[in-house]
């Protein structure tokens, strides 16, 4: 027996219940928070904060590393 049969979703079932995504969309739209409207202007404002960004997972070593933070700290101690 093929596994594929377990993954079949009948078209009727998909059409009947709205997906979580479309429920979410309608919910946010109903409050005015789903469309470009208000938020599009804030997109203009949306840049420089970037505090976090995608990164490679940190190395497994737990030993001392001279990170940028450590360098910054030492920089503040210089007179």
């Amino acid at each position, binding site marked *: 027996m093929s596994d594929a049969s377990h993954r079949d979703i009948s078209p009727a079932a998909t059409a009947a219940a709205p997906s979580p995504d479309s429920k979410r969309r309608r919910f946010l739209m109903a409050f005015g928070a789903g469309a470009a409207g208000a938020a599009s202007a804030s997109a203009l*404002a949306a*840049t420089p904060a*970037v505090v976090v960004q*995608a990164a490679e*997972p940190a190395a497994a070593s737990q030993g001392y590393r001279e990170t*940028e933070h450590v360098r910054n700290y030492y920089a503040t101690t210089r007179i």
Partner: protein
Amino acid sequence: MQTIALTHPLSSEDRARADFYALLARLYADGPDARLLQTIARADTIAGDSPFARAWNRLVAASGAMDAEAAAQEYSDLFIGVGKCEVNLHASHWLTGYMMEKPLVELRRELAALGIARRGDVTMLEDHLSAMCETMRLLIAGHEDREPVPVATQRAFFERQIACWVFSCCTAMRESPIANYYACVAEFTEQYMALDRDALAMD
């Protein structure tokens, strides 16, 4: 102004969510400059009488009336202060009473698992409200070759790391006698977070 190339097609509501989080990240990173105030002041108001619409419309109106110098002063008085800040924006403070406690360690572990880390040139802690909003934006919208994460992952991060303290923090801001512009920001934050929490819960 630096612009970020958007390589990931997003639905309009996810685009809007990412933008609202980006806006909040900026407002909590520093007092808004004249350009940001003007941008918010010119934004569309939201129709209807929901608490969310009212909070946004008040923020739009307040941004038109506020000047950047006063905003910078208010940010500094509220969130930096002399010796002790009026309102602390770090999760660890709200969850344990102290800065840089266990919640920060757990947050760093979760961020590492998501492949997110603080930029080397940034001294802001990861559990600062601004960094949390920036993380949500990154999860929703992705960045360059980073894909947006599924809603379930967004929901897990939001519930574990944000929902447990952000509402208390917003109440403290709203009720602070020295908050003026940031009382509006806090009210909008509170309403937006409540809306997104409910949206994320739909499954």
